[in-house]
């Protein structure tokens, strides 16, 4: 068993790929019976310090419909200078320059520059945001182009090239404009407007009129800093009982239009900083009357969210346009109330942009998250890439069903595209406008080999992932990952297949399917679907006697899977209770783009226990783990919770930690803090950091996550010293498992 775990780990390390099944059922029929689809989590830009880019063009298979890249799986006839494509079996001649090489990666031609659009909002903590933005200027490479758009009641596109008077173009926040109109109004459709001051212009550097709005950082650093410095709150008065007018929809539309007209298909980020919901114009989420609250899940279910559909449509249109241009949109929303992430989510989701939600721009949560965007890798390059396309090629037995992640379909219908869609399907290529080393897509396949066409023993299926992208150093690069897995006949080799099941990957992939469905379906339907899948999986792979729940066993490679599903059911990705629509959108956004490890943390938070009884240890995410003499550290990805047990809290209150003789207590208190710090350092986005104790109001973050094994309902545990009862009617894992077993062994199902 260890071998498979190692194998999986190795593969992940090397390729950034994890499959739900590592040995593939060799026929369509069998594959469908496996319940969990054949799928993988692909991290296209997994950091590989050991992988230097190869400085020449990839060698492609000459069959026009294939064009797979020469890869280690290809059979190479060195003497004849031929290689056989392992996808279409076309025999190809090597180009003359080749002597024989196994793995190929290519740099690309230079493209102009990479650009960042910044984009901001007037709010109370404007000052903090200004500082963050000014800080970010210093982190940008000097030749990066930046622009500035501010909005409130109006939308202002600031001209950065001018000397003397600062100029900006102003747009009404209520009027939607087409890209053409925006470009006309900004004077982008003509050669430089004559209004500009006469000054020495280097034509080779400024080929576009757009230079007025987008300038290299090093040129306008001072200018922009001044401009940011002079930014004021939206000067329009806000009457009592009204929300400030915020024209986010138009602002975004203008930013998209500006980039569309100036740098199509060049990497660019639109960074939207907003301190509240869009309140006017296209894309408005809520009216400006404060007495009418912003939509809740309840309103949405009752079809009472009057702006939602229209706004969503607006942002979807923008997101699609942005994606088509290869740009991405980040949303930094900091406000205590909702800001319309539900409607705007597609902007980040479809373009691979970031979504950050915080209470205030003046929190370390925002500041550090924002700073982290500009961190650099070991080569000193930004950990970001732009305008990527992911091309997936499969060997004949497989077809591509779809992908779930921060991508949009490129609608390339090749021979290897399945008619059955899972996620975004119907294509073999996707566009990922912005991605970083952790961006991960779930890619779903379908085995199409017919039952009566057996694959020879030892046959391997192959998949090639070709990722074209613009590196942050502005180079165009291609990363090619080719993987192969063995085929196995289910009849004879079920154990093999079973053993090669990656339950972690499978859980995440199923979860992604579930979340994907949840975006369009009713919550309960999704849960029922997940339950059915789980029951079917248990029926298929469990060992049991019919109608005897107690006899039910799952092998090691499946043992954790039901538990994942249990927590998934309770997770904010599928449960909207107690979450605002914005929060749900935020959580789902991150769930759909993080890699496997992070995704698992999201599904089932990790709980560490600290005590005098021994070194820190991971404990069950269960109410029984909440003990008086323990300190707990929970990581839910979005939150880091430190919880002091009742006794510990009392001790701390008594001030033992300050007494020299109780220095060990001080160390105990410090240990989880240090560990939490470590997590905080690495995580993006920065999690909410919660330090609480027994009886503290914030303890609810912990109590809502743990398995409620003890509640006020199961009396046998009530009052006992074994953990903390949770006041909930939710079923516990035990009850869930009992039901699962019963249903799995039932022949009625």
């Amino acid at each position: 068993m260890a071998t498979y775990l190692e194998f999986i780990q190795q593969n992940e390390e090397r390729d950034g790929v994890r499959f739900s099944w590592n040995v593939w059922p060799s026929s369509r029929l069998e594959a469908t019976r496996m319940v969990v689809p054949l799928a993988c989590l692909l991290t296209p830009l997994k950091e590989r310090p050991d992988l230097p880019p190869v400085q020449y063009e990839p060698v492609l298979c000459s069959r026009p419909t294939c064009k797979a890249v020469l890869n280690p799986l290809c059979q190479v006839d060195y003497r004849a200078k031929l290689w056989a494509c392992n996808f279409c079996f076309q025999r190809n001649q090597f180009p003359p320059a080749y002597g024989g090489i196994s793995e190929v990666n290519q740099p690309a031609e230079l493209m102009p520059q990479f650009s960042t659009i910044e984009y901001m909002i007037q709010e109370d903590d404007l000052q903090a945001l200004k500082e963050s933005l000014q800080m970010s200027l210093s982190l940008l490479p000097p030749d990066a182009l930046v622009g500035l758009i501010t909005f409130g009641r109006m939308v202002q596109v600031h001209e950065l090239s001018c000397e003397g008077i600062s100029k900006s173009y102003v747009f009404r926040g209520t009027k939607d404009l087409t890209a053409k109109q925006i470009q006309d109004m900004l004077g982008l459709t003509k050669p430089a407007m004559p209004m500009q001051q006469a000054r020495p212009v280097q034509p080779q550097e400024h080929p576009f009129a757009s230079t007025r709005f987008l300038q290299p950082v090093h040129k306008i650093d001072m200018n922009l800093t001044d401009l940011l410095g002079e930014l004021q709150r939206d000067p329009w008065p806000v009457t009592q009982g009204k929300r400030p007018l915020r024209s986010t929809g138009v602002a975004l539309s203008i930013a998209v239009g500006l980039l569309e007209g100036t740098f199509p298909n060049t990497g660019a980020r639109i960074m939207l900083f907003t301190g509240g919901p869009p309140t006017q114009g296209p894309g408005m989420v809520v009216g400006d009357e404060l007495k009418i609250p912003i939509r809740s899940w309840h309103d949405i279910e009752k079809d009472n969210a009057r702006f939602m559909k229209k706004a969503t449509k607006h942002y979807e249109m923008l997101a699609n346009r942005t994606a088509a241009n290869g740009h991405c949109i980040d949303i930094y929303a900091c406000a205590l109330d909702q800001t319309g992430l539900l409607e705007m989510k597609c902007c980040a989701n479809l373009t691979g942009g970031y979504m950050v939600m915080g209470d205030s721009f003046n929190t370390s949560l925002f500041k550090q998250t924002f700073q982290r965007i500009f961190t650099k890798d070991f080569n000193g390059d930004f950990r970001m890439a732009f305008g990527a396309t992911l091309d997936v090629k499969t060997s004949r037995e497989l077809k591509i069903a779809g992908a779930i992640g921060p991508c949009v379909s490129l609608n390339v219908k090749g021979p290897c595209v399945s008619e059955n869609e899972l996620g975004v399907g119907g294509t073999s290529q996707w566009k990922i406008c912005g991605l970083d080393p952790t961006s991960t897509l779930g890619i779903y396949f379908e085995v199409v080999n017919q039952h009566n066409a057996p694959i020879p023993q030892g046959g391997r299926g192959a998949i090639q992932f070709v990722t074209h992208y613009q590196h942050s150093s502005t180079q165009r690069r291609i990363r090619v990952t080719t993987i192969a897995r063995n085929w196995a006949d289910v009849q004879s080799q079920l154990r093999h297949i079973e053993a090669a099941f990656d339950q972690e990957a499978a859980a995440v992939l199923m979860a992604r399917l579930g979340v994907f469905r949840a975006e369009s379906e009713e919550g309960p339907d999704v849960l029922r679907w997940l339950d059915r899948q789980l029951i079917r999986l248990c029926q298929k792979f469990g060992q049991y006697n019919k109608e005897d729940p107690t006899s039910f066993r799952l092998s090691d490679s499946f043992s954790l899977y039901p538990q994942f599903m249990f927590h998934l059911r309770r997770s904010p990705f599928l449960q909207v209770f107690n979450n605002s629509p914005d929060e749900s959108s935020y959580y789902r956004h991150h769930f759909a783009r993080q890699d496997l490890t992070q995704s698992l943390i999201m599904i089932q938070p990790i709980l560490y226990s600290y005590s005098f009884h021994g070194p820190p240890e991971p404990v069950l995410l269960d109410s029984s783990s909440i003990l008086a003499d323990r300190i707990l550290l929970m990581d839910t990805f979005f939150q880091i919770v430190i919880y002091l047990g009742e006794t510990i809290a009392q001790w701390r209150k008594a001030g033992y930690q300050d007494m020299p003789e109780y220095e060990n207590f001080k160390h105990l208190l410090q240990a989880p803090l240090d560990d939490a710090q470590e997590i905080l350092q690495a995580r993006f986005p920065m999690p909410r950091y919660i330090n609480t104790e027994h009886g503290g109001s914030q303890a609810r973050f912990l109590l809502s996550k743990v398995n409620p094994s003890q509640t006020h309902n199961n009396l046998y545990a009530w009052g006992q010293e074994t953990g903390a009862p949770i006041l909930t009617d939710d079923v516990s894992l035990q009850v869930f498992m009992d039901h699962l077993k019963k249903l799995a062994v039932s022949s009625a199902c």
Partner: protein
Amino acid sequence: MSQQGYVATPPYSQPQPGIGLSPPHYGHYGDPSHTASPTGMMKPAGPLGVTATGGMLPPGPPPPGPHQFGQNGAHAAGHPQQRFPGPPPVNNVASSYAPYQPSAQSSYPSPMSTSSVTQLGSQLSAMQINSYANSGPQMAGAQLSYPGGFPGGPAQLAGPPQPQKKLDPDSIPSPIQVIENDRASRGGQVYATNTRGQIPPLVTTDCIIQDQGNASPRFIRCTTYCFPCTSDMAKQAQIPLAAVIKPFATIPSNESPLYLVNHGESGPVRCNRCKAYMCPFMQFIEGGRRYQCGFCNCVNDVPPFYFQHLDHIGRRLDHYEKPELSLGSYEYVATLDYCRKNKPPNPPAFIFMIDVSYSNIKNGLVKLICEELKTMLEKLPKEEQEEMSAIRVGFITYNKVLHFFNVKSNLAQPQMMVVTDVGEVFVPLLDGFLVNYQESQSVIHNLLDQIPDMFADSNENETVFAPVIQAGMEALKAADCPGKLFIFHSSLPTAEAPGKLKNRDDKKLVNTDKEKILFQPQTNVYDSLAKDCVAHGCSVTLFLFPSQYVDVASLGLVPQLTGGTLYKYNNFQMHLDRQQFLNDLRNDIEKKIGFDAIMRVRTSTGFRATDFFGGILMNNTTDVEMAAIDCDKAVTVEFKHDDKLSEDTGALIQCAVLYTTISGQRRLRIHNLGLNCSSQLADLYKSCETDALINFFAKSAFKAVLHQPLKVIREILVNQTAHMLACYRKNCASPSAASQLILPDSMKVLPVYMNCLLKNCVLLSRPEISTDERAYQRQLVMTMGVADSQLFFYPQLLPIHTLDVKSTMLPAAVRCSESRLSEEGIFLLANGLHMFLWLGVSSPPELIQGIFNVPSFAHINTDMTLLPEVGNPYSQQLRMIMGIIQQKRPYSMKLTIVKQREQPEMVFRQFLVEDKGLYGGSSYVDFLCCVHKEICQLLN
């Protein structure tokens, strides 16, 4: 006399009266109280009657009367006989006037005369005029001018014998004479307004006006101060009953300014029924507990706080302590009820909007404006007691897009915000756009320094216009304050935007029924824009610098309807027009103005205001809305009978203007005027004022221009003139020969003024006058007060060569006719828009030297608009005179130097309004004949 065409147009809607139907009033000349002469006096004096009845006089010049010769001779000393031997400009008619002797004064009746009777031969071929006075202590029968003023000698000198006999121009009524007479009798005196229905001095007469219960004539002038009692009478006479109201007229410093009444929170006391404001016309009764409204007769309780006992003659004890009880004009502090949304108004704002398209940059205008604004803004109008002006300022530049500027005081640099969405323009900023000038001075100066450079390389030719106004209006709306936009514009707005205009100037339409189209706006965008502007108290003042057709009819609509002013500088040239423009701009910035005004004219029972003319907008039939009204703007109001008027109570008018002051105070300005009523037509004719009549006729005709063919309008004006005079002749004048032209004294100069109006380029197209110029003049006249319209239609022509350098008085004016010029003379002509200095070819060299500092006529460079400052009395005196003429005029007059017999003289001649026009328009004499003929026809 067909008036059908006018039926739709209110000013002309008086039905055709049947002159013959009304009984003659020969025996009733004036009411008994009047000091008029007895009936018998009306009878023509014997000798005159004899000659006058010579309607059948045989053709041929009768021997010139020795008296007349003597007269002329006497004056020849003062006014050297002059002749104009040069070739006449276009037609030889002019030359026929040439030989006439100048000077007219003494041929006129004495100042006290109440009627002048001019007798005309019924045939044009044989006209004779007799003018004599038939009443008054100074009888002065000697003043008669003899019939057949055809001085044989000079006429023959001029060339071949005249085929027709002409009237002696000196024998027909002279406006100059009338003005001088009034000046002589009433000038410099105190005119107290204590008597109802008294006729004020002429606008041309300087006097001190003392408000004693009726509004000063500076505020209200009426066409007649005695209304006919019945509408039948009014129809019979066809004299328009109208008042020209200039509610914000400037009060000279030697007269007391308006008192401000503050009744605190209870606000002004008003009649419960008609809502008239407390005024001297309210009659207190029941010991002061109640008062009867003079307008609607409703009896109201006196509010407790306002109670006061009455004295023995039924007057309140505090009569002289309360302005509203004893004065004709005063102001009330308005309460919140009188404010928009019941909120006190914000102080107004001025927004300067500069066209920075290529042409304005190139001719240096933008630089000039920016440079001069810096000093001009120091003088924003303020209340006397205030330290600095409450008016805030804002700046916009534009070509086909708009640039707003943030000039907030805490900025190091102004910020520019470009609005390119001209299709649906909006205001991009609120805070920092409208600022206090003093606080933001450095930022504003910084901005004004930078604007010319910023656009120095602009080659944008296209402009927008409607969006500019829209932007300004939206800015004021957003700031919730009234205000004024100063737009400096130069071209036809052809850029794609609302209000886009195309060049539609079509000379072919002239003299057709479609000519009116030229005066109508091209699109209705401007009309609705103007409505919006008025609704938000946004007045638009437009400075136009056209080098070609810019469609003034369209561009000028908003300024007109919002109480703004339109200034036009054709082919602006920096060195020539700079001063005129800057004077206008300075004057316009500094002038007294009220914003966001609503005027209501209330009348006593029996008549009411029916029509209004001016820079106004009306959404209903009573409320006159004005985005702003300044000291030069007048509203002409026409009245009609509802019912009978009583001679006892008279006709009372109360004009109330609710407005916002320059410091943001809401106030009511009340003007009250009582007029007499009479059932005698003669009283009516006695109380007319020709200057006001012409103002009314001009405005109603110029309004009708939009809907009627010009020919019809001219006909109606002639007919109405004839009708008014015929009615007088028939009902008031003593019987005389049909061939006699008898003019009521008060309307002596009506024909000459009417002829000037008819000849104005608005009503009579001339090829050299552009469509824009006509539209411009039409618009100007619509808001003119009586003094301005008088000067505009009958320019002032002053002989300069006879200047007495020791006197500070203006020289006596001469009649606007070429025959009054002499080649040894220098004349100054002004009409309120233009000023000409005409130099005869033989002008005295010492004068030339004195004025121009050059040795001779030939050395004079006419390419100047300012006279050089030469340190001698001639120069000083002339420039002083020009200063006096310019003073009080709303428009700065551009000086043109005209040398006799040089090309520019053609322009100058158009202003010699008594002569036959170069391109049409009859001479005064011809017109008089024509009117006479009409009258004769009516009488028959």
